[in-house]
């Protein structure tokens, strides 16, 4: 395996990890505030659909991005309505949202475009362009560093860089701001927040808004990467992000490494699915299932003491 192959795999790792990272951070904000979010998958899907549809109609992926974020936000707010305002079951609400997304995207897509749930392909400004960082060409001849810079670090879309910046930003917000302190507190002990005179409801909705925006970015990324929306295109990434979140112990920097690992697995799986090593053939299906198997293995053993936010999953009920 030569260096270029390694670079290519790593490059596609970054590509595949980007939506996972954004989704994982979305889940991080939501769960840190005490709202378990199984509906990440659904938000990802509606965002991909709306951004794909609007980007096609307007010819601008940036308008598509706005639409994708808006759609994801609507879903986030429904989740908030069910799990914050009406103190319902967060798991069930998330499951319902995933179904709604899976159904609505196809029903509406068929009605708009009559392509069996697809959007027409996106092209030109309907997709994100790749950002070529300065000196990419000039440095590309330098051994090792050159290709690493031009292939791996440069040449991604804006959202990849946004996702990477979102990691330290999330850390800073959570651990260095008043908002972050309150957000973490509300996920641990909402009654402490309430008696301190801060609205639990408002904080939790704020968290869901952030989660909605991040999922919207991730969904738009998917639509742009695939040049259009395809039925069920989120393909379980919302669930993988959720697994990565657990793996990351609900921390921003760990989330980066967790999603990179999962992205790497997917990249290797994509590249080697038809390749046999010597006499031993790794079945396609095994490579497909590997991220899920690993998640289970991680959950079962190597996770150590990953303590989720203590108030996670339970609605805050003040009146007895």
């Amino acid at each position: 395996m030569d260096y270029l192959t390694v670079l290519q795999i790593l490059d596609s790792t970054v590509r595949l990890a980007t939506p996972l990272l954004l989704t994982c951070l979305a889940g991080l904000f939501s769960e840190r505030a005490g709202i378990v979010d199984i509906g990440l998958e659904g938000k990802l899907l509606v965002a991909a659909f709306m951004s794909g549809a609007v980007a096609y109609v307007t010819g601008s992926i940036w308008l598509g991005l706005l639409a994708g974020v808006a759609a994801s936000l609507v879903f986030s707010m429904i989740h908030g309505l069910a799990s914050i305002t009406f103190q319902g079951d967060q798991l069930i609400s998330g499951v319902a949202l995933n179904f709604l997304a899976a159904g609505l995207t196809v029903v509406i897509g068929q009605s708009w475009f009559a392509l069996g749930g697809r959007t027409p392909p996106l092209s030109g400004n309907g997709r994100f362009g790749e950002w070529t960082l300065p000196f990419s060409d000039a440095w590309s001849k330098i051994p090792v560093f050159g290709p690493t810079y031009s292939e791996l670090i440069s040449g991604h879309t804006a959202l990849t860089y946004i996702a990477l910046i979102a990691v330290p930003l999330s850390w800073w917000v959570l651990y260095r701001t008043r908002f972050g302190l309150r957000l973490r507190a509300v996920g641990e002990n909402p009654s402490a927040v309430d008696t301190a005179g801060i609205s639990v409801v408002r904080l939790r909705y704020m968290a869901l808004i952030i989660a909605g925006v991040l999922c919207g970015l991730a969904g738009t990324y998917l639509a742009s990467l695939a040049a259009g929306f395809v039925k069920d295109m989120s393909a379980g990434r919302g669930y993988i992000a959720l697994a990565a979140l657990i793996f990351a112990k609900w921390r921003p920097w760990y989330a980066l490494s967790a999603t990179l690992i999962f992205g790497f697995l997917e990249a290797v799986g994509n590249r080697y699915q038809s390749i046999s090593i010597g006499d031993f053939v790794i079945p396609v299906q095994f490579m497909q299932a590997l991220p899920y198997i690993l998640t289970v293995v991680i959950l079962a053993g190597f996770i150590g003491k990953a303590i989720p936010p203590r108030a996670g999953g339970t609605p805050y009920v003040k009146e007895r």
Partner: protein
Amino acid sequence: MQAMPKWADAVLIPLISILLAFFFSGLTILAIGKDPVVAIQTMVQGAFGSTNGLGYTLYYTTNFIFTGLAIAVAYHARLFNIGGEGQVMLGGLGVALVCLAIDWPHWTLALPAAMVGGAVFGAAWAFIPAYLQAKRGSHIVITTMMFNFIASAFVGYILLNYLKVPGSMSTESAGFSAGAHLPTFHEMLAPFGINFNKNAPANISFLIALLAAFGFWVLIWKTRLGYEIRSFGESESAAKYAGINPVRITVIAMMISGALCGLMAINNVMGEAERLIDNAPEGAGFIGIAVALMGRNHPIGIVLAALLFGFLYQGGAELTFWEAIPRELIIVIQGLVIMFTGALDNMVRAPLEKLFLTLRKNKKGA
């Protein structure tokens, strides 16, 4: 003191929730420029207007009774089994292996064997997440979800590499022998002079599903095991105090749940397809969640909810055919039903409780 009479809790709230879900489904149909009234007529006609339609409706109902009961058993132990889909898939593999193993002389022999095959495979698939939850604290919602994906890859692999007929283009096993053919409603009702459509897939599994519902009722409310499952579900700390082993109950409840999912395969794999095809469950494992929620985890409710979803499924297929509305509309309705009956329960409950409270106060005042 109860804020509300029992009947309101058991019947009125679910009813209002369903109506809300249907109202929003109607809005969705309107939004895509179709007429909801026409859509309902088409669905009712398609689902109940002929014995063919009815046969399909009851066929789907059978599937959903099994998965609904499965989700409900786990839920009585407060385990959210989101992995029904994978357990149905494995059940299908179990049923297919039994049916293909020998040349069965008669269905009366093949059916019990296939039931064991399906139940064991389904239970085994549920065992791993259950064990991991009970012993290692891995959250069952996440693990069962992962196991759906793994099941899909695993069954696909077996099908492609071991069960597929060599040279065949389609990813499916060989057809089962005639001795493994289950009596359809057409065959069952002919002796009574009723001419049920020959092509409808409803079969004897429907009766087994009803038996399972009865068995569920006995298990949960009459047996000691059911008592322990409910106790554990209501309060884990109390169960521990009473000497109820949490590991045992978690594993048993999940395995019963998996077994019920696996049993569904006698309907779709053995009764209908008569071979193992790729992605046989078609979402039935997920619909079980909606059915269990809507049926309030009670067998009577589950059978009724399963019938409703059977109607939606068959009616939905007709919608695609006559009205060009995608089948996915059913998934939307399913999502709305789960949302309103499951997550937005309080939205309906709180105003109703207030209403009953004022009614009672007025009565006292008068």
